[in-house]
């Protein structure tokens, strides 16, 4: 990983899947998603990227939202995955893993060649 996180071009494709994979585990809110991403090794997802993404997921019908009172201070917007969201996540995860395997194989071969 580079010092300031993964390149944003890489994240653009896979971030919706990662976010949905977190939401599918249980109802959660924006800041918790950001913390979880950081904990999982994706540290550079700022609010400016995360919330518009959540907004798009909501508009596409992959998540639903509702407001609840925060533990202290302002209320929280909670995200919950929809059945359509679950289906999309399952389908796209398979595709991503396949894509990931292909790129892994390609890059692994390249590294082996360079070593020999």
């Amino acid at each position, binding site marked *: 990983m580079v010092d300031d996180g993964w390149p944003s071009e890489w994240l653009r494709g896979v971030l919706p899947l990662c976010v949905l994979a977190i939401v599918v585990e249980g109802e959660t809110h924006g800041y918790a998603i950001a913390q979880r991403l950081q904990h999982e090794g994706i540290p550079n997802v700022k609010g*400016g990227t995360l919330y*518009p993404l959540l907004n798009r997921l909501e508009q596409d019908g992959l998540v639903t939202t509702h407001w609840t009172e*925060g533990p202290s201070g*302002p*209320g*929280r917007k909670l995200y919950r995955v929809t059945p359509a969201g679950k289906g999309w996540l399952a389908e796209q995860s398979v595709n991503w893993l396949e894509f990931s395997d292909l790129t892994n194989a390609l890059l692994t071969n390249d590294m082996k060649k360079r070593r020999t």
Partner: protein
Amino acid sequence: MNKTTSTYLRQLGFWLRFQGVEGPRVVTILLEVRTHVAESSEDPYETFGEPRAYAKAFAEGSRRRWLWGTALVIAVAASIASVYLLASEVASHRDYRPLPFGGHAWVVVAVALVAALIAWRAFLVVAVRPLSSLAYDESAASSSWRTWIVHRRDTTVAVVVVLIVGSVLWGWSLGNDFLKSPQVRASNYVWAIGSSGTPTFGVNPVSIGATMVIYVTSPGPKIKIVNLSLSRHSAGGYDPSVNIIPYPTLESANRGAHNHNFGGTDDLAVGTTLKFGTYYLLQFGGEIDTAYNAMQPAESLIVDYSVNDVANGALRITLPVTYN
């Protein structure tokens, strides 16, 4: 909430409205930012970026509504401009008034369209701006702006009524002014003197000298003096002589009428363009023929004028002639 967050929310609310994002969505976005910043203690400028750039991330879904809104505004502005042009046509046919702005009606249409678009944009930013203040009330996030208006029903009804009544009254007076052609008028001050000449073959020539102040009643098309004459023309070859002197106020023109000696040998008045807001001291010298021993005749000065170079009207000024 610290000052930085408060400033950020205010700026973000402004740019979201500017991008055409709907009220309830603006509230939601502001609340998200507020909650995130409160929980993470992060700097909103660092986490979310510049408010203008962040607002753009939500503008995509609003583009269609923006296009529809623009189309609607253009349609309304075009309707207003059409009504204006129609009214011009009616005014033109009714009292031979020339079309406004020398016939460049497209200027009016273009100005109406631009003004309507600017007004709508300003309305989005200014009139709906208080919605951003709802970001401090979480319960408002789930309610739409319509609910917000319903909660203030009396105010809304009052504002709508005032707008409608004001528009009608304003439109009515504007329409009346518009349909009225600018006219030339004379002030109350008119002075005239008549001097009898030598009677010849039963005809008595009388020289008339008159001083008065004339002005244009309303702004608009170009008003030009075409001709000046007395109500009885001299049979002889005596050409009338006229002076016209502009003054900035009616008072100064009236004062000028009292103080200025008649020196009218230059026929300067005919062809003079009269401007709205200027008062003209008009000095006229002419001659009429009366029957020998006739009673002192009533006399008028007739000012023929054109509107946008089309002969339009005549002002008849009764002269209170003092004969000697």
